[in-house]
């Protein structure tokens, strides 16, 4: 049973460019969340996708956008890259428990983005 996978593993971009990161959730999961983890810090929530819609968003500018496909895979897009966007981007998937309103998130290995 494949866990959460992310691509690419590493990426180097220059300021002003645009980047797309990809995530395939764990088998059977329908919800994908994205996090940004700056060096030496804990992850920060960017947004969550469920049923192909953004369900919740953290404190990130509109330059950060996403998409979820019918097969539950997801993309994170960042426009007009800034030096401060350099970070590890983590994807986490979960299966929404309608009855309990809870879901445990399982993380992928992340994509390391460096903006020069």
């Amino acid at each position, binding site marked *: 049973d494949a866990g959460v996978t992310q691509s690419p593993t590493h990426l180097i971009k220059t300021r002003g460019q645009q980047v797309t990161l990809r995530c395939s959730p764990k088998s059977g999961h329908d919800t994908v969340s994205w996090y940004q983890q700056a060096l030496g810090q804990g992850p920060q929530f960017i947004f969550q996708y469920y049923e192909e819609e953004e369900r*919740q968003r*953290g404190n990130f500018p509109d330059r950060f956008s996403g998409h979820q496909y019918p097969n539950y895979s997801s993309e994170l897009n960042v426009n007009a890259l800034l030096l401060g966007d350099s970070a590890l981007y983590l994807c986490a998937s979960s299966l929404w428990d309608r009855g309990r309103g809870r*879901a445990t998130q*399982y993380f992928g290995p992340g994509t390391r983005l460096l903006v020069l």
Partner: protein
Amino acid sequence: AQTVTQSQPEMSVQEAETVTLSCTYDTSESDYYLFWYKQPPSRQMILVIRQEAYKQQNATENRFSVNFQKAAKSFSLKISDSQLGDAAMYFCAYRSGGLNNNDMRFGAGTRLTVKP
């Protein structure tokens, strides 16, 4: 807003000994979940243990156990019989129990070193 604080940036333990990692959180909610995640150098966040706030009994998973003090808003992780493979960054995380509040708040992490 909910915040998570890990006051120990680094901890070390001798192999086979016991170590306790501290975590405090701030919330006005009564329904929430607390987590400990482990992030080894491979970067993948691995769920170590989970605690529902409505449960008084402390969660345990093999060598890992928590001391959940709801009134004090404290959630420490105890690792017994420490092994070399336990060396990693450990993150404490909080998630609201609300159906429409799905982001997780992470602490800054504690780097655990295990000495042979």
